């Protein structure tokens, strides 16, 4: 699926996703199960709210002093022997990675999970330059073989059933046809990727946290794939958005307690790896990427979104995400957080996303760094309408609504007309032109409006 050139918006893709009802229910329940695991983990910590508040304040403080922290990180990382690069946008990031590989004559690279490289479309870029990239996170490898983007930032192939994964493995990795046992499929991927780890000279990883005070960076995985790649290769490239910084090593105490409990309900990831210095004789490169982040930092209403630590809790809890699937967002980061990040990158292309929400606020309630996600979704809607990027149907509807609601006379008349139409010619509203009729029956029209009832009763009581 290409992210470029949207022909359908989120609502249309959600419609497609909803054609298969049992599958939607399965998707919904799987994600809700993870949300419940998150709840159990969070509720087991009596100070959870204090932890969230502390994390939120540390992140906000970091954003308020980001330029200094970036320089401090750079100086300390360089003192540790790490080579630091700066990329203004996705294109520059991709060029930097390519030039590092070129310099070392590398044509094959192994990569662990990095949503930033998805955002930059690094794999496509490198493939065009004749460099093969293999994703090593199991979920990412599966979607890579299926030629799809990840549908979730923590659980990349959450939209696929094990039978479908079995088919992908049968086609690409030679497993027996019809084999869908997760144990056997995982073992197959382990053998296949071990070969990859052992033969690659360059490994790229993402970054979960970068520490200004020490110049080190932390990568969290459950599989151990980031470490297998980085420790076996000669060159380690770590790509990070500039908002990944935190001031001090001790701040990790706060963030590592929150991250995985919020993501999957585990107390911590299996591996929290602290990379401080390169192995003697080997190179570690860190690429600091802006790609719109400094612009978002300047948007007062939306800068809070840069506190995100990419746990995915807002996606797991979102009633719209659970019932529309990650691909319907057509953005590297889907769900509620993606819907407030993406319009900053390209407001026109992602104008549909802030509307892909019920504004129920569940996302804000589970967010470990207390981003006011649902408020930002609401604010983005206003910006998008003002800038003229809103769906014309929606604008027309809003205009009509404005006309009806701004005059008591028209309001009364339209109410009456509506009730008459629903009673007399119900097919005029109960048809597929009316989005409220989709998958539900229209309510019985009341005999009279509240206004009519009130006038009648007040008279009789006088």
């Amino acid at each position, binding site marked *: 699926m290409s992210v470029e050139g949207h022909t359908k918006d989120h609502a249309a893709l959600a419609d497609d996703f909803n054609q298969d009802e049992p599958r939607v229910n399965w998707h919904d329940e799987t994600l809700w199960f993870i949300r419940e695991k998150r709840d159990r983990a969070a509720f087991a910590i009596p*100070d959870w709210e*204090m932890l969230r508040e502390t994390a939120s*304040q*540390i992140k906000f*403080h970091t*954003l*308020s*002093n980001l330029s200094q922290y*970036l320089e401090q990180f750079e100086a300390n990382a360089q003192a540790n022997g790490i080579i630091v690069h*700066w*990329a*203004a946008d996705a294109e*520059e990031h991709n060029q930097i990675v390519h030039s590092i590989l070129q310099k070392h004559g590398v044509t094959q690279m192994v990569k662990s999970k990095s949503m930033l490289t998805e955002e930059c479309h690094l794999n496509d870029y490198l493939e065009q330059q004749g460099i093969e990239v293999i994703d*090593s996170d*199991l*979920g990412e490898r*599966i979607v890579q073989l299926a030629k799809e983007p990840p549908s979730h930032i923590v659980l990349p*192939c959450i939209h696929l059933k094990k039978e479908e994964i079995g088919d992908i493995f049968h086609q690409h990795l030679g497993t027996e046809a019809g084999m869908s046992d*997760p*144990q056997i*499929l*995982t073992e197959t991927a*382990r053998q296949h990727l*071990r070969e990859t*780890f*052992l033969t690659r000279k360059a490994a790229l990883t993402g970054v979960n946290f970068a520490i200004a005070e*020490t110049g080190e960076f932390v990568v969290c995985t*459950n*599989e*151990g*794939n980031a470490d*297998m790649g980085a*420790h*076996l290769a000669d060159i380690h490239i770590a790509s990070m958005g500039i908002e990944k910084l935190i*001031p001090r*090593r*001790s*701040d*990790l*105490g*706060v963030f*590592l*307690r929150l991250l995985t409990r919020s993501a*999957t309900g*585990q*107390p*911590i990831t*299996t*591996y*929290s790896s602290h990379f*401080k*210095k*390169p192995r003697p004789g080997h190179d570690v490169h860190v690429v*600091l990427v*802006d790609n719109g982040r*400094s612009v978002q*930092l*300047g948007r*007062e209403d939306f*800068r809070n979104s840069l506190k995100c630590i990419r746990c995915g809790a807002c996606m797991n809890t979102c009633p719209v995400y659970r019932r529309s699937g990650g691909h319907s967002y057509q953005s590297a980061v889907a769900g509620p957080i993606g819907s407030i990040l993406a319009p900053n990158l390209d407001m026109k292309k992602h104008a549909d996303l802030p509307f892909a929400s019920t504004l129920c606020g569940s996302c804000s309630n589970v967010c470990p760094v207390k981003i006011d996600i649902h408020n930002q979704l609401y604010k983005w809607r206003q910006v998008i309408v003002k800038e003229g990027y809103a769906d014309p149907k929606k604008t027309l509807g809003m205009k009509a609504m404005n006309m009806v609601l701004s005059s008591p006379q028209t309001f009364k008349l339209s109410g009456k007309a509506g009730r008459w139409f629903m009673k007399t010619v119900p097919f005029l509203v109960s048809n597929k032109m009316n989005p409220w009729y989709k998958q539900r029956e229209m309510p019985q029209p009341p005999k009279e409006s509240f206004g009519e009832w009130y006038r009648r009763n007040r008279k009789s009581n006088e």
Partner: protein
Amino acid sequence: MNSREQILAAVSKNQPALTPMPEVPFFQLEATDLVEKFTQVAVSIGSGVFQVESYEEIQEILSNDFKIHHRIISHVPELAPFADTTPLEDRHRHQLENVDLAIVKGHFGVAENGASWVTEEVMGLRVVPFICQHLAIILPKDSIVPLMHDAYARIGSAEYGYGVFIAGPSKTADIEQSLVLGAHGPRTLTVFLMG
């Protein structure tokens, strides 16, 4: 203006007015028995935990599953000749691919999440605790700290090239949320609490 200057200028211009760094409150673990809490959490995430008094005891337990034909390596001199303690060289790191069991000493454990803190100098090579099929970590029993805040207080400003918290065997649930142990790293983790 190069990208570095451009980014830093844009960030300085757009960052909000400085807010203070918050005071990190004092967090406390409810459980008081740290060894018990560590054990309970470590087992729940797939680790095996044994309380032992000596290296002999560790070897005895491990020899139930690991025999003479297995490749066992360690950076702990007391474990020779049960384990091959020959110093490892970086250029031979790919040859560790057939290691069945690696035994490393950890610095301390964390009760709230069953993690052990391990740094480069106790591993031999960085890849050791990942490339082995099975991993064992030896921790001093009195080294368990309650929470991650305590863990970082203990690490302080220690120097290391590479350090890692290891909590359980390598795992994945990427296929339909079914938990599978042994994704890319060790299939099992055994923690020995010694003392």
